[in-house]
């Protein structure tokens, strides 16, 4: 089983996030970068699928599109246990939107051998949650998204992937055959922390850098200028207001209901 995990570096969840005034893209320079949280679950799931599949030919490869700095996140994914990594790194990619990113990643995946592509179901910076579906569409493979559980059955040649797809009401059971794209939600597992041995080993694992030319990506198909969506303006969120304290002197419930009604929450 050959698995590729798409990993995105995002601004630290704990940091204040900003858009760069010049081009309205996320300011990635001034904050610490971390692995997008849901991608850690994707890495963990890929490692578990690999471990239960066994066999020397089972591998997990990390694929990251992002600036130079994203190497830190790639190293972390490798120290968790991934075997190799591919970094799609090219200034021309800066400012790409979701549609273009899915194109670029699909092209990069074309340079690799894989049965499964695993992703987190959304990123904490963009929160669009569309990439896994776009990618499956571009690759023309089974689309198994929002998985809270993944089971891989069968052996060489005919492998079936069955997932529990989280829905608002509960879950759907969906099945598809490989090759497939899976996206995972955080209920799926508990990502491991790298061990020191893993950290040391990560240094020696293969990390390949691809330019857009290496991946066969048309320069006109990616980047800010060619994006099909644009941020036309933005304002900072207003500071949180003080809030209202309701003291319960026998009619707290009614006061809460009034508050909710006044704000049109109910």
């Amino acid at each position, binding site marked *: 089983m050959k698995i590729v995990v798409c990993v995105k570096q995002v601004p630290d969840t704990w940091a204040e996030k900003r858009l760069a005034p010049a081009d309205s893209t996320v300011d990635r320079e001034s904050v610490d970068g971390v692995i997008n949280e849901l991608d850690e679950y994707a890495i963990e799931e890929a490692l578990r699928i690999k471990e239960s599949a066994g066999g020397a030919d089972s591998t997990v490869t990390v694929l990251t599109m992002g600036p130079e700095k994203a190497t830190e996140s790639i190293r*972390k994914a490798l120290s968790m246990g991934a075997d190799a990594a591919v970094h799609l790194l090219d200034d021309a990619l800066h400012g790409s939107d979701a549609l273009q990113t899915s194109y670029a990643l699909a092209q990069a995946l074309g340079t690799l051998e894989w049965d499964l592509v695993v992703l987190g179901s959304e990123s904490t910076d963009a929160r669009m949650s569309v990439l896994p579906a776009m990618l499956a569409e571009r690759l023309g493979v089974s689309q198994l998204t929002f998985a809270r559980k993944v089971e891989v059955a069968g052996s060489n040649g005919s492998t079936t992937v069955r997932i529990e797809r989280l829905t608002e009401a509960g879950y759907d059971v969906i099945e598809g055959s490989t090759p497939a794209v899976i996206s995972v939600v955080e209920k799926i597992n508990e990502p491991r*922390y*790298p061990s*020191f041995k893993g950290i*040391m080993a990560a240094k020696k694992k293969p990390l390949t850098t691809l330019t857009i030319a290496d991946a066969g990506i048309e320069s006109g198909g990616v980047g800010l200028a060619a994006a099909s969506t644009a941020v036309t303006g933005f304002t900072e969120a207003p500071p949180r207001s003080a809030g209202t304290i309701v003291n319960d002197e026998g009619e707290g419930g009614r006061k809460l209901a009034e508050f909710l009604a006044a704000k049109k929450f109910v």
Partner: protein
Amino acid sequence: MDVTLGEEHEALRRTVEEFAREVVAPAAPGFDATGNFPYEIVRQMADMGLFGLPFPECYGGMGGDYFALCLAIEELARADSSVAITLEAGVGLGAMPLYRFGNEEQKSHWLPRLCSGTALGAFGLTEPGGGSDAGGTRTRAEIVDGEWVINGSKAFITNAGTDITELVSVTAVTGQRADGRKEISALLVPVPRAGFTAGPPYSKVGWHASDTRELAFENCRVPAANLLGERGRGYANFLSILDEGRIAIAALAVGLAQACVDASVAFAKERRSMGRAIASYQAIAFSIADMEVRAHTARLAYYAAAARLLAGQPFKKEAAMAKLYASEIAVTNARAATQVHGGYGVINDYPVARHWRDSKILEIGEGTSEVQRILIARELGLRPSV
């Protein structure tokens, strides 16, 4: 000249920082209140390989070094001292004597289990009659029918009574030297063991979830082969373990001192008084700035001591200075952070209240501040009366 961390040390530090923030910090108020040993957290630390950090891979270790251990301890202590001391005592005191002084058979028998964190070791030097005067050991051991028979007691022993404690190494008087002084040797006691009893956990001011007990040995028999290191070298060997251990305790103290800064910065920005955030009052801001200076300086002191240890240079004085300074500033920072928090500073839900209670032990364990000053003075060629 370089005091920045290398790539691997930094990656380890960040990993443990994340673990401490996400897993240890939320659980800490709970086990601080109950005093229950944090088995589940210890298991997760074991999965990360923290108990094997400074040991070679051939014994199941991670192939790191003592500094890596110190970094992990510092980051854990930013969340909770009980968890940090459990690692410090398990590795620095429990497993290290075996690694440094054990023979091949002893090492390959014990180290893999200790490195994996499935078993904990403890280090029994202090006795009820006195810790600073470790040479005054009264516990005795003699060979009877080819076995060591141990009698006596030990006090304040960390990790000695958990469900996963499998080894206690102890110092005991095994005879008299030619010069008339006591011959002290170290012995490995596998536990549980007939004749060995760990008393109930002490009720402590701080380090609530760290396991600390008094130990009793009544005709406790262990094989002759359980002598650790050379006969008569037990006292000297244990003291050299404490030299290293002081760097690790300094790291723990720095973690606590830094935690006080972190909590105070966050609190002072949120808390308002007389119409402004208290952070905007110079009295508060300067107090926090001073805390940061102390934490930073103490960190440099333990980095410097660790650098000498790794380089194979003498480090006794540097380790004592780092331990002395870091433990004393940890207490100072905890007091200052409590003050910044006002009334909340003495409410147990707030981490600084716990840090305050946890800090005092740092000036006592692994050699009191007075003992550190004696060591430093001696290294300067002075002979303070003891």
